[in-house]
């Protein structure tokens, strides 16, 4: 049953992406990409990734959509041009995908508790964490303590984006000459 729901949700995601490819109306595309993110969040939730699902819903479906709508408003752009010369890109993407698929034969099976990712490194996070850190949410423990340096990097990425947007979009004060 669980698997069936996951499959159904993923099919809906693919449909959303298909519509995004097809559509030329940018406003529609933005809304669809919000829908896509929301479906992605649901799939992630069904895959037991509650924290990730929550973040994807807030960021992908919420924030990104708002940013995109804002940019659309600023750019006054409604319709993209039609596809031109789609065959070369299509061939390239298909070739890429086929190579990828060939590579995945042999990746661990879904839901195999004996797969190496469940046997190495992670057991300490699950079994010893109550004695070492003692917070109920294991994701928080890994994110904020075991791998807290990654989270520092992540915070820096957010900071970089913020400072970067300031650097790009700040209005120039009068009297500064900087011809662009």
């Amino acid at each position, binding site marked *: 049953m669980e*698997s069936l729901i996951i499959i159904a949700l993923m099919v809906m995601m693919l449909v959303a992406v298909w519509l995004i490819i097809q559509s030329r109306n940018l406003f529609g595309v933005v809304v669809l990409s919000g829908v896509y993110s929301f479906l992605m969040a649901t799939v992630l939730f069904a895959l*037991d990734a509650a924290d*990730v699902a929550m973040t994807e819903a807030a960021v992908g479906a919420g924030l990104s959509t708002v940013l995109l709508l804002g*940019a659309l408003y600023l750019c006054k752009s409604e319709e993209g041009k039609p596809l031109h010369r789609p065959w070369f890109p299509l061939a390239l993407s298909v070739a890429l995908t086929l190579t990828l698929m060939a590579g995945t034969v042999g990746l661990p099976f879904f839901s195999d508790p004996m797969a190496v990712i469940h046997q190495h490194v992670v057991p300490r996070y699950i079994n010893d964490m109550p004695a070492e850190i003692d917070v109920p949410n294991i994701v928080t423990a890994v994110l904020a303590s075991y791998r807290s340096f990654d989270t520092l990097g992540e915070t820096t990425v957010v900071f970089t984006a913020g400072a970067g*947007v300031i650097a790009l979009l700040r209005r120039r004060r009068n009297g500064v000459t900087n*011809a662009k």
Partner: protein
Amino acid sequence: MTTLAGSFTYLVTFLLMMAGFFIIIARGNLIKKLIGLGIFQSSVYLLYVGPAKIVGGTAPILAAGFTVYSNPLPHVLILTAIVVGVATLALGLALVVLIRESYGTIEEDDILKLDILPEPETEQA
């Protein structure tokens, strides 16, 4: 059914990747390209989170009565990936807005046409 769902996750990962890549190279609108880029980036989520799931397991939040938890490590990594995605989108859109202001268009071919002409020496607003 479980195996099917598993292979399907991988399949969807690659289909999404392909779709995102296709939008990036086939579409000339700069905003649409960024949307494609977002899909391309988000395909990774399933590659990481799919295999982390254990059927019959539960979300990795310790609670009485559960002994089998899905693997929390990929979740942590994907949280970071999502944040990176939105950071890239914000910067990309800021660039698009500036391009629109100085070129008057966000269609790639129009911009390339304008770039062949000599640069106008006008002050940007």
